[in-house]
């Protein structure tokens, strides 16, 4: 049973390499675009709400991000179709898919950026300020480097989440590895479901691994825990 299934999967991949490649490329493109936008948006917003005297705003923004996470992704796709349609923009395909994924990735990015900046030792900040660093210098030379490991952890979290949810984007015509999954579900084609599902998992693990390396590389040496 398992063996026949594996053979089917193997044969499908061999006979339709361009199709499988298309799904993977679409999936990766969609996730990456969403990730890049999400990271820029989330980190900027996270740094902003971590600023002095913005505690109320931070509470509000983080709460909102949490609520967005609880909305089922399918419902969010639906809502966006309505919203974008009424704005005269394309209601299906790439754009709504990217928007949804960006929204989903926000919570881990925002929360980690916010926490990371807030957790920087206040004596270190006071020392910097006492030596005449401007707020900008403090942010870029002290706070961000120290916050980087935690921010990176948030980005990894968001990336895995986005790659997973991107499979659902197939339902609104954005392509990707959701296509074989849903096609397989409709036609009882186990091999397609496996191709889609396993690829999504492998992709998520792979990207997570790359980001983990990046995280280690970007962590300032003085903060690294040396394995002696």
């Amino acid at each position, binding site marked *: 049973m398992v063996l026949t299934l594996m053979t089917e999967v193997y044969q499908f991949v061999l006979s339709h390499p361009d199709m499988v490649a298309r799904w993977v490329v679409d999936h990766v493109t969609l996730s990456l675009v969403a990730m890049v936008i999400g990271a820029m948006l989330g980190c900027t917003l996270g740094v902003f709400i971590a600023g002095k005297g913005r505690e109320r705003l931070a509470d509000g923004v983080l709460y909102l991000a949490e609520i967005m996470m609880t909305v089922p992704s399918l419902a969010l796709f639906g809502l966006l179709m309505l919203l974008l349609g009424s704005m005269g923009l394309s209601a299906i395909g790439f754009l709504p898919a990217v928007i949804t994924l960006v929204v989903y990735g926000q919570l881990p990015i925002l929360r980690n950026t916010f926490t990371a900046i807030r957790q920087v*030792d206040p*004596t*270190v*900040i*006071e*020392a*910097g*300020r*006492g*030596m*005449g*660093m*401007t707020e900008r*210098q403090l942010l870029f030379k*002290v706070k961000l*480097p*120290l916050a980087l490991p935690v921010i990176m952890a948030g980005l990894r979290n968001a990336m895995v989440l986005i790659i997973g949810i991107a499979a659902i984007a197939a339902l609104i015509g954005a392509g990707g590895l959701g296509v074989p999954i849903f096609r397989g579900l409709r036609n009882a084609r186990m091999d397609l479901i496996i191709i889609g599902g396993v690829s999504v998992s492998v992709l998520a693990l792979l990207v997570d691994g790359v980001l983990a390396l990046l995280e280690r590389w970007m962590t*300032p*040496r*003085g*903060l690294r825990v040396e394995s002696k």
Partner: protein
Amino acid sequence: MIRLEKVTKVYPDGTVAVREVSFEVVKGELCVLLGPSGCGKTTTMKMINRLTPMTDGSIYMDGLDNSTTDENELRRNIGYAIQDVGLFPHMTVGENIETVPALKGWTKADQRKRAEELLELLRMEPDEFINKYPRELSGGERQRVGVARALGGDPPVLLMDEPFGAIDPITRLELQNEFLKIQQEIKKTIILVTHDIYEAIKMGDKVALMKEGQLVQYAPPADLLFRPKDSFVASFVGADRGLKGLQLIRTKEVMWKSPPTANPEEKTDVAQERMKRHGIAWVAVIDPDGRFTGWAFASDTQGADRVKEITKTSTVAAGRNAVLSEALSLMLTSGSDVLAVVDQHNRLEGVVTFETIRNTMTEVVQKGVSQ
């Protein structure tokens, strides 16, 4: 150099943290802000570099009103060292020290040169430490780097908030002594905050004692100890202020510089003659190189031919920079009423007796420390 005029800090909730504090710190002097916790000493200090905005009053540095300078510019010219050090953990020791030079736009080479100079000044081998990260340092080393960083931009003024606070007592003592030596070289104008009366007496040229946001007494340590302005000052310096006063004076300042000595091979009657002439009952025994070996006492001379026969060997001696409290402690623990003062090669430089200490303290109590 630094003049505070009726400096006041009122917090938005109405708490008065500092009330009309005025004093002046002379160029090159170390002024200690002393007081119990919550007395406003740290707040007062932070108003000088404007980390805490002041509510009322003025602060002048070199006659220039602090509030007219750009705050970041101002801070780059005021060294700042804090209790928890606050070293940047993601930067090396060198990069930490170069912070202010970098902000001031010095060239990379100048920055590095400055960092090396300062590490040397704080007796840390530049080659060994400059590329280390703060987490690789001991507590004492971190504190040193903190001081070096504060001196980075060669500021004329230094603010130090309990800079020797977070370390063990032995390292603290060492650092205090070293810092005093360094200060004699660099002659910065320093304001140091502490709640430790011993530190204040030891380090301060002047001490500003604060209580509940007000300046109670601003005076040299000896005056604070022996001429307290009111009962608060008296109780703050404590009933043992006489003992604390012993910290104000070093052995080299009061020792008997050419005490009677004898050589081990000398005849005892010659040595005894010398004691009689000085009206004392002892001589210090030194070897031909001038190294201190022990004491010979008049009571033992009976029937002895040479000094070496009656020499009581002793290794108890104080350094020339030891304070009188240390000297007295050595005398009490060794049960001797005379103490040798030696240099680093154990060569006799002088002696201190109970009488020296008593006379010195009587003078200090009456007139203060003359320098």
